[in-house]
């Protein structure tokens, strides 16, 4: 039974020393990488999003940069994987362990970052206006302005949420045209949702959503559908709740119907993505979905269309964009060099790489007119749909505690749509009331 390593009093202090030195060594190693100022070489840390495509993209852009700038070396380190990027960044700000540059900044969390003075004002650089103005249309750029009138983010990429549909499934069910309105969607759903293998259980559905009340899931259903139904309005006007209206009720009742009539299953799927497996005919997602489909289900024949809208809808169909932007953290010792790197990231050639590698849309006004992108779009016709959609795409409101508000909306959405315990009007009223009290409470 010799299993404790410290039978004698002499070995124990020795072991303790080994253990502590191991621990401290580890710390030192981490710190050293942050700011080694030996020599003239400047080191920058860059955090891209942790998905495989963006890591690949970041890797190639950083390699190019390092080759061209031997005196400014960038180290790429994907954002530590966690439930969401914002948690990691907030913890990093609190612990002062932020990188120099991060390209996965969610505009919805900007208020918290700027309040904590965690970011460098980009408009302090003299050429910000010309660079950003050249790339992004003025009115769109203005939506990324912080409440204090400064810019802390460089608009980078967006993933407009649209409707993917499985052509084979719609055809097999006898649906000839892609549904554009709620009633067309229901009509198609009635044909699509059925029991294929005759075991008494429905096995293919019109659509499906994760039924757990997780706040960010609403960025792929309630939020884009509301923007579509309201012709481009977001949830807030300034700092005031602005979604207590008919449009929001329409959206809630749309999803309520989907569940009530069984077009959406009220279950978790274990084992496999139901869209890739041909178990659901439609999916609401951004263009980054394309790379997943081509990798995991290359034989899937899909199409892309705008989101369904209420029957009396007029005009273009808007959606939400899930913008991700680039920011420089105020912990940086080399803001100038970091800004040079940011400018490098948003050059047109690298935007083309963003399209090619990650299937995500760069935020720029000349996507469909710049000759540089022409070849790409002619080869990827479904990406044209997304590029066209970007003009009618909205971002996030810049109110504080947006996550908590989405959580509140999630709870009422769940009660109303998934479980049918509240009427759409009640659910919208309750969600609005909860949102107001969250804002008031945090004042």
């Amino acid at each position, binding site marked *: 039974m010799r299993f404790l390593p410290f039978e004698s009093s002499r070995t124990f202090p020795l072991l303790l020393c080994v253990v502590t030195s191991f621990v401290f060594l580890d710390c030192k190693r981490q710190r050293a990488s942050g700011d080694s100022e030996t020599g003239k070489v400047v080191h920058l840390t860059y955090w891209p999003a942790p998905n495989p495509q963006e890591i690949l993209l970041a890797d190639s852009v950083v390699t190019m940069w390092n080759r061209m700038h031997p005196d400014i070396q960038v180290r790429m380190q994907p954002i530590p994987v966690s439930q969401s990027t914002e948690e990691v960044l907030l913890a990093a700000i609190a612990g002062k362990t932020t990188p120099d540059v991060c390209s996965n900044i969610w505009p919805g969390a900007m208020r918290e970052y700027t309040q904590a003075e965690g970011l460098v004002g980009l408009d302090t650089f003299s050429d910000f206006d010309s660079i950003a103005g050249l790339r992004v249309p003025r009115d769109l750029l203005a939506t990324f302005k912080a409440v204090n009138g400064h810019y802390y983010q460089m608009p980078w990429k967006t993933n407009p949420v649209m409707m993917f549909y499985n052509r084979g499934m719609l055809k097999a069910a006898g649906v000839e045209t892609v549904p554009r309105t709620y009633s067309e969607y229901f009509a198609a759903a009635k044909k699509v949702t059925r029991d294929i293998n005759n075991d008494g259980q429905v096995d293919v559905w019109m659509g499906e959503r994760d039924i757990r009340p997780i706040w960010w899931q609403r960025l792929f259903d309630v939020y884009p559908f509301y923007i579509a139904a309201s012709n481009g309005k977001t949830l807030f006007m300034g700092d005031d709740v602005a979604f207590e209206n008919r449009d929001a009720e329409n959206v809630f009742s749309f999803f309520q119907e989907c569940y009530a009539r069984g077009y959406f299953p009220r279950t978790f799927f274990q084992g*496999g993505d139901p869209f890739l497996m041909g178990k659901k005919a439609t999916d609401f997602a951004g263009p980054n979905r394309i790379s997943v489909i081509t990798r995991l289900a290359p034989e899937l024949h899909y199409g892309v269309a705008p989101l369904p809208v209420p029957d009396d809808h007029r005009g273009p169909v808007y959606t939400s964009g899930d913008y991700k932007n680039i920011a420089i953290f105020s912990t940086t010792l080399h803001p100038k060099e970091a800004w040079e790197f940011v400018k490098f990231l948003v050059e047109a050639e690298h935007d083309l790489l963003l399209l090619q590698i990650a299937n995500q849309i760069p935020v720029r006004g000349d996507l469909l007119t710049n000759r540089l992108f022409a070849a790409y779009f002619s080869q990827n016709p479904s990406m044209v749909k997304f590029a066209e959609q970007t003009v009618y795409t909205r971002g996030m409101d810049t109110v504080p505690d947006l996550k908590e508000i989405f959580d509140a909306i999630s709870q009422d959405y769940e009660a109303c749509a998934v479980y049918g315990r509240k009427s759409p009007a009640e659910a919208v009223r309750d969600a609005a009331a909860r949102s107001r009290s969250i804002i008031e409470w945090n004042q």
Partner: protein
Amino acid sequence: MIKSMMKMFFLFAGAVVFAYPFLWMIAGSLKPELEITNLWLWTSNASFHNFRQVLTKIPIGRAFVNSMFVSLSTTMSVVVFGSMVGYALARLNFHGKKILYTLILFTMMIPFQITMIPQYILMVKLGITDSYLSLIIPTMMSAFSIIVFRQFFLSLPQALIDAARIDGCSEVRILFKLIYPLSRSTIITVALLTFMATWNDVLWPLMVIRERSLMTMPQLVTIFVIGGEAEAQLGPQLAATTLLVARASSHPGVRVFPKILHRQHGFKRHKRITE
């Protein structure tokens, strides 16, 4: 006869209920995706495909080393410091002994809910989030182990210690040379309980560790399963959890621990305390 048959039947049914899910999981991790939901454990298409996928996607080997290092350091520290304080409380006289003992008993009643957030903030302020220190330091000592050791040391004959003192042994020597060999069962009980608790903890690592290469094994597996990395495929999820269990069932705890709990008086003693 019939009675004992019935007994065996129930015991066997219980064994199936407790063991089948694990067998199903292990079988599932070897099966191709479409066969997993099948109740039957056998498959003719078994492969290590899922394991390969897990091993290439997440640094689970590194996570194992992390978990091992953190749990062993914590366990060692809890045993050493627990026995030191336990010995002082049981066998040494000093001012404030009574107060200290009361404080330690009181500590045992403080739920984690209260201290969790300030402890996290403390880690942030000390600047040791994302390091092994943040996993080890807050659990370096435990009131529970002190109490267990104190109870056990009180039961040792005083004459033994007096004899050693007259021989001129230092207290440190008495504790580590003389008493340790006599307290194997207590040390093992404390060590196993501590090791198990540290190894299995997920909430605290989720709070303080964001750097992937420092994550503990259960934390990494949790994130792998609920984050998007498994790409909603069941096979890799089961493979990851199987790797986590493979370690646990080789744990001496499964065999030794119930026996110890059952037989050693050490446990009966601390049981009385927690009441």
